[in-house]
């Protein structure tokens, strides 16, 4: 099973803080339930295209994923970020399709929108 965490869209500091704390608790709960994790984020927020607050939030999520993957909950357990371009909707059950076997701690960016930009 996989826990899907969909990024919210905080527009102020309180929202950023609250959303990061919520994600932390969701990840801990997923580990306790022995579920993998995939976070779905707007690709534009990886580089702060929709404002510094959302950039900070999604940047924080990416860091969280990397740190948690670094520790690893158990052998074979995975956590990743799937970054979706605007207008692309992916059902929870299909997000795993973008992440290959054995991939963990990675940011998978769907589409070509960030080609030529700094790799998040």
């Amino acid at each position, binding site marked *: 099973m996989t826990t899907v965490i969909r990024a919210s869209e905080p527009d102020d500091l309180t929202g950023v803080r609250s959303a990061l704390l919520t994600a932390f608790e969701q990840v801990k709960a997923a580990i306790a339930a022995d579920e993998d994790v995939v976070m779905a984020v707007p690709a534009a927020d990886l580089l*702060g295209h929709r404002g*510094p607050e959302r950039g*900070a939030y999604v*940047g*924080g999520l990416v860091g*969280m994923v990397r740190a948690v993957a670094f*520790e690893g909950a158990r052998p074979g357990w995975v956590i990743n970020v799937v970054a979706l371009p605007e207008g692309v909707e992916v059902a929870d059950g299909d997000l795993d399709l973008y992440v290959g076997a054995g991939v963990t701690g990675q940011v998978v960016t769907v589409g070509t929108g960030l080609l030529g930009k700094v790799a998040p």
Partner: protein
Amino acid sequence: MTAKLAVVTGGARGLGVAIAQLLVERGHHLLLVDRDPAVADTAAELSREGRETSSVVADLTEDAGVGAVVEAVRRRGGLDVLVNNAGITRDARLSKMDIDDFAAVVDVNLIAPMRLTQALVDDFRDGAAVVNMSSRAALGNFGQTNYVTSKSGLVGYTRGLALAWAPRVRVNAVAPGLIDSAMSRAMPEDVLAGLVAKVPADRIGEPSDVARAVAYLVSEDASYVTGQVLTVCGGRSVAP
């Protein structure tokens, strides 16, 4: 050349002092910020002829602390450089890290610099520069989910703010790797030696290495650089 005002948070000791010292040497006036009252002594030690150095004791996780800094900046007529350097660690394996450990680090390392920077939005002079102190650990590190989240968040904030404030203010980040500090000196000798062995530069970084990166980013030499992360880690972030 007219001296510019630089505000450095976490300025009482360590990296903050090295950064402040170099900025003073390169002609900046200085406003040091720290919640440690020792910051006043540091400011006094860094003072020199022709430079105004002062300090504010402030907890930047509280509105009153941010307000005190804003007030001090306004008394000086605005600012040209902001270095968001203050930070803490509260390391633990994820299984041992509770929500308070997580929130405390996010509050100091991410939310506080965002709050201060935003509060100063009208006080930056044209051509000003912000440097946010991230970390090589933003790329991932063991036992630091809170710290990595905060420092990676700061990278995202840097990029977003650089876009939002261009062209008036440049915003960049510095990501130090293993740097000689009270924290590194507290490590067992063999552990520290093992970490240094992974650094292609074959030495531990000095605070002055980081200070020079900051000084570059706030200088005219970096006038075409914004939204970037300068990693100062002796090559560790690309090593096997």
